[in-house]
Each structure stands twice: as structure tokens, then as C-alpha cells.
């Protein structure tokens, strides 16, 4: 059976915790793993699961996100039927509103729901790094006879549970309670912010909630209805991280990709990750280069020493330069003899000859286009 699903990606987040990386972009557009942006994972998951109509809800500083998504052709979403819809807040005869919350954002784009032939809606976030085959989720949803299925994950001690929504379920995996960002978490099962729901049910719920100022999808739409609706938890046990949780988390995710098992899962299982093409030549490592445990992207010329780092596209690391435990974004230049350790360099940063950029206790972040 082919399940007709409309994909919605919430990508309007400011991502304050990622400041200053989110000074110039929405958190969903944050560059990751050398050539991707965070949203590529959710978008690719949807396309790989057969979803060919995807709406991306943007609000905060969307330029780089829109530039990245373009017509959606890298994800095969430049289609006559379905395709990619960028859904921005707009001015209309009803007034001028920014999206006042996740439910409101979908409510304001009700036309997309009303018009389509899809029966279900999958709501994901542009900030999540994971690979999943959503068709397993559909099957689970039908088998449970659920009204709404939420994806959850047992989080280990490497996650700060107070930053997540903690879910309580009965023995049947029906959700009894969700505590949003609790000070003292009662469990370790966290809601991942991914919803699967019948489209017409979602429309009804939104019509009932949003005009009454219930603007948040989880707090105002799902939680008050936990008794009335059959809301089930689908447990995902693969790699899952949320870039928006903070600079440390963002750094950690990038370092995770240096592990073979993480690369295998994120890059090679459950379909490919698609991203915007850049037409750069393959990376070159010169005779003076020493590279160890690092990711190197197209367009790079490496002549210095690189260890435990993620190097994005078109980076130049000159002879004698040392880069360790760092994330170096696109177009940055590390000149001769410069040292970069425990740092995140945003795009097009220049570290001049002989200068040192070293994060001591905390990861040092250099803003886009800064020159040291």
C-alpha cells in the first residue's frame, strides 16, 4: 500500500543556543559534516521514504536556507506534482502575523493541507541529525490504530534530559504524559519533535486550537488531548541529535562523524543524504600535509597538519599550519604556521600567518568572515 504523506519541516527556529553561528542563519541551515546543512537529513529522510510534497516552514533569517533549498532539485523535489514549498509568514487581508508558534505556522498554511490529496502529515524539524525510514513509522501507526504517533528515543547520559520533553507511556506504548523540559526528569524517554498524524484530524485540531490562541503544536494541541486521542510513541533507536541544543552539542555531533559506525549509519544506511551541489574539484593533500582522523571536503587544498577535525568545502590549510579538534567551515583559510585547536570557525574565516586560535575550557567560536 502506498501511504500518501505530506511532509512539513519546522525550520523557523532562531537557535539562540547556537549563537553566534545562528547570527547569520536559521538553525536548520547550519552547516554540518563538511558539506551538508542540518535540514538535509530530515529532507532526505522524507524523500527516501517516498514523500514528494514537502513544506518547509521558515521565519528566522531564511536567506541561507532558501538559497540552499533552491527549487528542491537536489532532493528530486523540482516536480510538477508535489515538490518543495517554502512557507514563509506573509501579509494577508486577515492581518500581518509572524508565526506565533508551531501550530500557528501550520494553521496559517492550511491551504497546503486542504488542497493536497495526501491523507497523512509527517511533521519533522530541520534541526535533527538522524537517518530513518519513515515507512516503518506508518506501519506502526496503522497497527496501533493510533490517532497520532510521536517518535521518541531512550536518551543516554550524553544528553541533557532537562532540555527535552520527557514522555511517560503505558505498557502498550500509549502516551500518558509529556513533561516539557522538566527540572527533575522522571524517565529517559524523550519526544523527538516528530509527529505523524491524519491530515483531517490535524486540520480539525488546529481549527479548534489556534483561533483560541493555542499556538504551540505540542503544548496547546497534542497535550490537552492526550485523554481523548490515541497518541502512541514509536521508539527510534538509531543515532539522533538536535543541533539546536547548543554549541557543545553542535561540536559534539561534528566530532561524532569521525566514528566509523556513525558515518556508516548517517551516510550509507536508509538512503543517501542529498545536499546542494557546489561543483568544486576533489580535495588535494600536498606533500607537506599530514591528515589524521578527519573529514575533508571538495575544493580543499591541505598542506598543513589536520587532526580530529571536520574540514568543509573550499578550505585552505597552508603548509606548517596546525588544525586540531576543530570544525572549519567553507572557504576559511588557515595561513602558514597558524594554530587552530578546539575551535569552530564559521564560513570564510581567515587565521593569519602564525596566529593562534585555541579554545581552552570551552570551544572557541569565530564568527563568519572574521579575520584573526
Amino acid at each position, binding site marked *: 500500500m502506498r501511504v500518501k504523506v505530506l511532509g512539513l519541516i519546522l525550520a523557523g527556529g532562531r537557535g539562540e543556543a547556537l549563537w553566534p553561528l545562528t547570527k547569520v542563519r536559521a538553525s536548520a541551515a547550519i552547516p554540518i559534516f563538511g558539506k551538508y546543512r542540518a535540514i538535509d537529513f530530515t529532507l532526505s529522510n522524507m524523500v527516501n521514504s517516498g514523500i514528494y510534497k514537502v513544506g518547509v516552514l521558515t521565519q528566522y533569517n531564511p536567506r541561507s536556507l532558501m538559497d540552499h533549498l533552491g527549487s528542491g532539485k537536489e532532493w528530486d523535489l523540482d516536480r510538477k506534482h508535489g515538490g518543495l514549498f517554502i512557507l514563509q509568514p506573509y501579509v494577508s487581508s486577515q492581518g500581518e502575523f509572524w508565526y506565533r508558534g508551531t501550530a500557528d505556522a501550520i494553521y496559517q498554511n492550511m491551504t497546503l493541507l486542504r488542497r493536497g490529496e495526501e491523507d497523512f502529515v509527517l511533521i519533522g524539524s530541520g534541526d535533527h541529525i538522524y537517518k530513518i525510514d519513515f515507512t516503518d513509522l506508518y506501519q506502526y501507526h496503522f497497527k496501533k490504530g493510533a490517532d497520532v504517533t510521536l517518535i521518541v528515543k531512550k536518551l543516554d547520559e550524553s544528553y541533557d534530559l532537562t532540555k527535552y520533553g520527557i514522555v511517560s507511556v503505558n505498557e502498550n506504548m500509549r502516551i500518558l504524559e509529556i513533561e516539557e523540559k522538566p527540572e527533575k526528569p522522571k524517565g529517559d524517554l524523550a519526544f523527538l519533535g516528530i509527529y505523524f498524524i491524519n491530515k483531517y484530524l490535524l486540520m480539525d485540531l488546529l481549527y479548534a486550537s489556534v483561533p483560541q490562541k493555542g499556538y504551540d503544536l505540542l503544548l496547546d494541541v497534542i497535550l490537552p488531548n492526550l485523554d481523548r486521542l490515541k497518541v502512541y510513541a514509536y521508539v527510534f533507536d538509531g543515532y539522533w541529535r538536535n543541533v539546536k541544543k547548543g554549541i557543545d552539542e553542535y561540536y559534539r555531533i561534528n566530532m561524532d562523524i569521525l566514528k566509523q559506525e556513525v*558515518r556508516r549509519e548517517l551516510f550509507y544506511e536508509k538512503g543517501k543524504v542529498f545536499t546542494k551541489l557546489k561543483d568544486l574539484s576533489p580535495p*588535494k593533500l600536498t606533500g607537506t600535509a599530514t591528515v589524521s582522523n578527519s573529514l575533508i571536503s*571538495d575544493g580543499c587544498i591541505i598542506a598543513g597538519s589536520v587532526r580530529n577535525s571536520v574540514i568543509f568545502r573550499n578550505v585552505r590549510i597552508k603548509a606548517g599550519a596546525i588544525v586540531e579538534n576543530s570544525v572549519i567551515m567553507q572557504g576559511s583559510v588557515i595561513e602558514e604556521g597558524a594554530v587552530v585547536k578546539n575551535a569552530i570557525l564559521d564560513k570564510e574565516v581567515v587565521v593569519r600567518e602564525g596566529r593562534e586560535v585555541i579554545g581552552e575550557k570551552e570551544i572557541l567560536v569565530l564568527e563568519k568572515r572574521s579575520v584573526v
Partner: protein
Amino acid sequence: MRKVTAMILAGGQGTRLGVLTEKIAKPAVPFGGKYRLIDFTLSNCVNSGIYKIGVLTQYKPHVLTKHIGIGKPWDLDRKDGGVTILPPYVGNEESEWYKGTANAVYQNLEFIEENGADYVLILSGDHVYAMDYNDLLDFHILKGADGTIACMEVPLEEASRFGIMVTDLDGRIVEFQEKPEKPRSNLASLGIYIFNYDFLKKILEEDERNEKSSHDFGKDIIPRIVKETLGKLYAFKFEGYWKDVGTIKSYWESNLELTSPLPPLNLHDPNWKFFTHTEEMPPSYVSPTAEVMNSIISEGCEVYGKVENSVLFQGVIVEEGSHIVNSIVMTRTFIGRNSSLENAVVAENVIIGKNVRIGVGEDRKNKYDPKVYSGLITVIGMDSVIPDDVTIGKNCVIGVDVDPNDFESRTLESGGYIFHRR
């Protein structure tokens, strides 16, 4: 607006590339880590603002046709113009297989006519170079020429390998020598021509009626125009990098050149990008056990061994303890633990087992075809499997689709060959 249509000759087999072109046409041969040879000519066209392009295919066109597709990577998926694949076809009258480069263009004169071209650029799909064709066209128009040939000065001792132009002081070609023993000039034709459409049409129609002609631009068309002074042909001196990677040795050399700090062909020039169609792959990973020097390591590679002066194409895996020197390894090839490669060209989707040694031993002539397989380089064809513990010498060739059953012993001496028994 100058109306130019480019016709790219892409039907050649490239027999001197041996097993590398057994399954694919020469313009589809991979180059430089992520490209195929035709990418250079296609990219030169779009970078020069030429968006009306015909690609003449004939020999094993599948990979090439799929690679070009509707021309998306080159922005050639256009409403007006774009790229059109022109295979030989059966029509009402004399259409048939392309008998030569000139005949191929002749059979598609209608295509050029429909494009409304004033000028026709004739290009080869298998040369590696960066050229702004506007310079050629400006020169052509300035000289009031009927045809202009891009040429390059070559060392006089090598001139006998090329078509040589003898020009007057103005650059007009007064004599053409095809691979001359005693060259009178060192100006070699690059196989890049621009013609006024009306002139070209007339010449091609005449040539078609000439039963003695082999219908080839280099052998028939150009010599005849010069000899019989049918029109004004000029030589345009090109001073950049240009290479016809016609032999395995030159293919190997020009790939390895790219790994040097300042290669003659700059693939990193932001103002003259080379576009290609590639598979989506993650960035390359270099592990703590790896050692990489003077090499190109393309997307999707995972390197755990040692790589020196080599070009690894996309998705190549080099396991721990392996050592690759002066070699070209194409897309998705796997190299098992503790194997070593020296002076090797390994085609796509090859699996090399553990403890394999390639390129060792003395220098012996290849027994299968010494003209093709020489220069101490060992070549392994597409989709082959080399079993564990095998030793292969220098100047060897392993064909396409070779499987472990094709190996009669663990050792293949220098100059040896193995092909798949069907």
C-alpha cells in the same frame, strides 16, 4: 549576439586506452578524481556562453548518454538550445553509421541549420583543457576567415605526431602536413575548429560526394581546403594547457600531474569551473592509521592505508596496511588490507583482495599488446575481482569482469595478461 553551435565528436573508441574503453566510449573515461573527459569540453562551452551543443555519439554510448542526461550539471537543461545527443540514425536516404568525423557532422547539418547557427565549433569530447572559445571566435572574425583551427606550439621533435600547420605572417594556413616526417613548423592542430556555417556546409557536401574521402576533418577536410585553396583557413595560437589523453601513459601522467602543488591545469579556478555529474557522496575520511601525500582523495573515500602521488576517485576504500603509489584508482574500487599498488591504473568497481601486490618485478614487454600496455604501468579493467595473495607485475593488463576463477596461479609475471573467459 553571435550564433554559435558546438558539435562535440564523442563517438571514438580510443583504442590506445585498451581495457579502459572496453565498456565505455573514450569521452566517458573518468579523469581527475570526479570528472569524465567530456566534462572539460562541455564546461568550456558553457563557460564560453555557448548553450547550443550537439554531442555525436556512436561507440558504446550508454555511460556517456547517462552522464550527460539532459545536461543539468552544465545548466544545459534549457528551453532554447541545450545539449542534444546525436546518435547515428536510419533515415530516408543515406543516413547510416558515422563513417568519419566529417560525415558525422554532415549527417547532422539539419540540426545545425535548425539552431540558426552562423558559426559551427567542431570539438573533441576527449581532450583535457581550459579554453575560452570567444578568443578563438574573435580571432576568426577579425581575420575574416572561413575556418580557424586552434593550434599549439609543440617541441619540433614531437611535431611528427601531430597535424602540422605552416602559416604565413598573418597566420593564414598555407600548408598542412599530417604527421610529417620532416615538419616545416611546430604548430600542431588541436582538433578544435570553427567554421562559418555556409562554408562548412558547402565543403561537407562536396566531401560527401567524394568517394575517395574517408570523411575525416583531420585527414580529408582540412588538407583539401588548404591544397585546393577552397577558403581562408587561419591558425589560432592557443597558449594554455591542452592534452589529448590518447594513451595509457599520457592518461596516467596527466592525472598524476594534478596532484602536484601547482598543476598546469587548475581545477580550483573559481572563474573557470569544470562541471560534472556525480553521485551524491559524503566528504572523504582520512583515518588515524592513514598517511596521505601529494594525492587527490575524492568524496566518499575512506582511507586507512598509505597513499602517495595518487588520484583516488569517489568512494574508493583503502584498507589498513595498504600502500598506493603513483596510481589512479577509479570510482568505488575497494583495496583490501596489506595490498600494494605501484604505477597502476585501476578502473571502476574493482575489488582488490588482501595481500595483493601490483606493479612489482622487472620491466618486460606486454605480451598481449605492447603498443597499448607499456611505460611500466599495469592496468585493471572495470568490475574485476583480484583475489587475495596475488602478485601482478609491471606492464600487465587485467581485463574487464575478470573473476577469481580466471586466475590460474597466484603470480602474473611482468608483461602478462588475464581476460575473463566467458
